[in-house]
């Protein structure tokens, strides 16, 4: 677990490996199974998620601490966060398309998908739940996004090989994918206890 008095390196390590968002926390699984068919797509999606996640949770942190708390509007947290993030992703897509066409060509198709990616919203909620400072939440979100990238790319690599392997008929398709995820999750569980995390 993360606490607000941990140092930056431990927060990063915990977010990325020990509490890996996909394999240990089960967040953002829809995209995990949906687009991890090939490595290239997965790398693109992973980078887009890191980018959006860092931006979105910084904005949610500011919204929470400078709008929701001073005006005593905590019950609007869920609605405020999701609307902020959705608006922000739209805005970001427009800015990138206008200013960085090359980046847009590389990331463009993934951006709209990210609005419904629960990892982004989850990161925004978690930095509030863990009561992290601004710098710490920045490091935490980079860690979470990095963990997403690592897990999804590794998983895509395995799936490309599974596609060619002989598999029992009932397990073809999604079942074998979940069993693979189970084994990967088991491997990540091995990091538990590292540096007392």
């Amino acid at each position, binding site marked *: 677990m993360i606490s607000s008095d941990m140092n930056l390196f431990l927060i990063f390590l915990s977010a990325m490996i020990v509490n890996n968002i996909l*394999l*240990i*926390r*089960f*967040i*953002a*699984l*829809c995209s995990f*199974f*949906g687009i991890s068919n090939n490595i290239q797509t997965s790398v693109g999606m992973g980078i887009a998620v890191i980018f959006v996640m860092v931006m979105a949770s910084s904005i949610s942190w500011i919204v929470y601490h400078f709008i929701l708390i001073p005006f005593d509007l905590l*019950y*609007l*947290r*869920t*609605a405020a966060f*999701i*609307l902020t993030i*959705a608006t922000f992703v739209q805005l970001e897509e427009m800015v990138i398309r206008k200013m960085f066409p090359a980046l847009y060509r590389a990331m463009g198709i993934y951006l709209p998908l990210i609005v*419904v*990616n*629960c990892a982004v*919203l*989850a990161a925004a*909620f*978690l930095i509030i*739940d863990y009561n992290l400072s601004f710098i710490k939440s920045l490091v935490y979100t980079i860690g979470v996004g990095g963990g997403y990238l690592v897990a999804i790319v590794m998983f895509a690599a395995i799936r490309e090989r599974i596609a060619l392997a002989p598999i*029992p*008929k*009932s*397990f*073809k*398709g*999604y*079942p*074998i*994918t*979940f*069993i693979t*995820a*189970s*084994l990967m*999750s*088991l491997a990540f*569980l091995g990091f538990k206890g590292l540096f007392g995390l």
Partner: protein
Amino acid sequence: MEMKKKVSPWQELTKGLFRENPILIIMLGLCGALACSTDATNGAGMGIAFTFVMICSNVVVSLIRKITPNQIRIPVFITVISTFVTIIDYAMKAYAPSLSQSLGVFVPLIVVNCIVMGRAEAFASKNGVLASLMDGIGMSIGFGVVITLMGAIREFFGAGTLFGAQVLGAWYPPVLIFVLPPGAFLVIGFLMAIQQRIMKR
């Protein structure tokens, strides 16, 4: 043969159970299903929270479908859904604090649960109130049954209990992996394999 079959409200309800089961067939809403099924009680709790949000938002989206401008329908749906999520989140904090504690961030995350959003967009915004209500109930039951079943399986093998009550005696060494994260992937993998086998027959 007529092209478009008339679908009765009853059929809207039953399709969510098996043929269009949200978790096992359409593969949606996995986050909550896997994370909250560590035991049967958590699974049922998540199922109930989800049911409330699903049914209420389906009905409301269907009620306002004629006055919602098409361009901004997604933000409108999100606002409707997040209202109900906030209600159930606060209700659980007040009346079931320990359950709320163990479900944690996954209750607010119902707002981005693809099933709720997906049904609002694909079904409730195009169909009448009764059909949407039935669709919501069916989807919720389909979700609730699978998640409670997963919780029960994981709790049974992983701790030897069901809903917290001891089922297996002291002779049974709990297989801890079932309550840990890998167990969730394993159980749903096997459930899907069983389901594929039945469907193929």
